[in-house]
């Protein structure tokens, strides 16, 4: 019997290499756990038991031959917006309910070469739009720490799967916090890499200037192992960055806190955990200094202009012609309008309409172009801050996980959950959330994360500093 509760990717690697158990044993342990626990959590939209066992057997052959890599035989869950050839990839939308991917995403090609095991595809907010996974067309995912609460989103299934011990680690995608916020709510480490560090080829686009694929796992070390396996330049993604593209400054052992921004509208328990994490870093020899980043308070407004604008253009591809749902109509325009009406859920429609508005003639200057200008100022705030500090610290999310249904009728309240996380996507810098503490609500200990952001290309800095915070 393998104890999954404390198992990490790095420990499983050692155990598999020492032949304490086989990759098939490990995969079977997770498949059993899925049968036992996922009925309640609903982290998965589909489980691939048969092929997972075959992949595990192939991993055992690699291990026996001594040709294993860091993720050989490691059972992973994959967010439903990442393509695996021949498998359904629906982005939790009705419009792609029966869509089978025509090719592998680059991250999947890399994981296949590693000999990783794919357990299944995980639930999410439809097309990654949301902060709670309630926007899935296939039902909610529950937070393993308190099943009356959301796991966060949009990678809520990927987070809940790891937290509920029904996957050892997972892949998510992060456009405005969709890896870091569910990691925070589920007590995991989650990384949004530098824009361009991980190929977006085969990731269904939401906000193309913001999207990144990244790992969720129990520890910073695990997140690092998976990041190393999936990163790298890819000719199939024109925004992919070459290795060593950004120069890395030596560690200054200084962390910046934009105090004025942090303390506004944050739950007192979250703030206390944030401050305790800073104290821990101070004890570890880091200097904590205040930084002035005057444009951060505008980040969420900028995000909810830029993101819907990109959504409205990106989702134009779902029109019932080349793939996915197609509702017949007399004329082609009717096919478009009816297919999109039948296929998209409320939040997706809301963002398409909003994005169409901010891009429309007469409003584009005041909204979209202005937002781009302010985005550049936010980017400049970060650049200036990184002249003096290694990383910027922020809470991951202003609140612990909220109740299912609590914010579904108030889009602005839902958007406010992203206030601290969207900043990294706008600036293109890497961000990590690490488990930092627990807030007690109705007798349940809800996980709270601590977020760090570093300069472009400085993921290593996040791992170094993040591991100090999580070890508490």
């Amino acid at each position, binding site marked *: 019997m393998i104890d999954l509760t404390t198992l990490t990717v790095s420990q499983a690697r050692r155990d598999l290499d020492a032949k304490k158990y086989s990759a098939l044993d490990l995969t079977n342990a997770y498949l059993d756990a899925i049968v036992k626990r996922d009925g309640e959590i609903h982290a998965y939209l589909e489980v691939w038991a048969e092929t997972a066992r075959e992949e595990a057997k192939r991993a055992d052959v690699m291990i026996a031959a001594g040709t294993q890599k860091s993720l050989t035989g490691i059972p992973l869950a994959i967010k439903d917006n990442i393509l695996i050839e021949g498998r359904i990839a629906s982005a939790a939308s009705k419009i792609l309910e029966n*869509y*089978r991917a*025509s*090719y592998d995403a680059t991250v999947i090609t890399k994981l296949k070469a590693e000999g990783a095991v794919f357990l299944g595809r995980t639930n999410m907010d439809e097309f990654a739009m949301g902060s709670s996974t309630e926007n899935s067309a296939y039902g909610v995912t529950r937070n393993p720490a308190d099943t009356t609460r959301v796991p966060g989103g949009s990678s809520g299934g990927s987070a809940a799967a790891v937290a509920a011990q029904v996957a050892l680690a997972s892949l998510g995608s992060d456009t405005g916090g969709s890896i870091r916020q569910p990691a925070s709510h589920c007590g995991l480490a989650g990384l949004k890499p530098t824009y361009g560090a991980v190929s977006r080829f085969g990731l269904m686009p939401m906000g193309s200037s913001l999207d990144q694929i990244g790992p969720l796992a129990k520890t910073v070390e695990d997140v690092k192992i998976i990041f190393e396996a999936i990163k790298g330049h890819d*000719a199939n993604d*024109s*925004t*992919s*960055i070459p290795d060593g*593209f950004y120069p890395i400054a030596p560690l200054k052992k200084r962390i910046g806190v934009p105090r004025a921004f942090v303390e506004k509208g944050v739950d007192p328990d979250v703030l206390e955990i944030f401050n305790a994490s800073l104290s821990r870093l101070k004890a570890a020899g880091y200097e904590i200094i205040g930084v002035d980043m005057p*444009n951060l*308070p*505008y980040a*969420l*407004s*900028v995000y*909810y202009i830029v993101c819907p604008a990109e959504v*409205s253009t990106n989702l134009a591809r779902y*029109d*019932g*012609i*080349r*793939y*996915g*749902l*197609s509702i*017949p*109509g*007399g*004329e*082609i*325009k*009717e*096919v478009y*309008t*009816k297919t*999109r*009406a039948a296929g*998209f859920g409320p939040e997706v*429609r*809301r963002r*398409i*309409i*909003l994005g*169409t*508005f901010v891009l*429309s003639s007469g409003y584009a200057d*005041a*909204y979209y*172009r*202005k*937002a*781009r*200008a*302010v985005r*550049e*100022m936010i980017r400049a705030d970060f650049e200036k801050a990184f002249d003096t500090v290694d990383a910027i610290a922020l809470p991951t999310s202003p609140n612990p996980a909220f109740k299912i249904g609590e914010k579904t009728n108030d*889009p*602005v309240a839902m*958007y406010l959950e992203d206030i601290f996380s969207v900043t990294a996507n706008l600036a293109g810098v890497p961000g990590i959330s690490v488990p930092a503490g627990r807030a007690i609500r109705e007798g349940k200990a809800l996980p709270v994360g601590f977020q760090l952001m570093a300069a472009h290309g400085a993921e290593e800095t996040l791992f170094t500093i993040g591991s100090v915070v999580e070890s508490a």
Partner: protein
Amino acid sequence: MSTTSKADIRALAHLARLELSDEEVARLEGELPAILGFVEKIQKVSAELPKAVSPKHRNVMRDDENPHESGMYSETLLSAAPNRIGNQVAVTQVVSRDTSSHT
């Protein structure tokens, strides 16, 4: 600027090729101004519209050479299409006789 009239939502839905029910139009008429009221905060920032700055990393297209064998992916992609006739994606009528419906 933050108030969008009923006609606006319908016009936006038309631009987005999205059919909306009356009920949803009514809901969006309430929600859109609320969201726009929130994001309008950026109007307070005195920011110049971005000039043509060249970013550190630009979209990089591969060299137009060594194309893959013609037809290599055709069947894979065609097999995803909801309607096909032979090696073509089939669509319904694009041009209408009734010009009044065109905007």
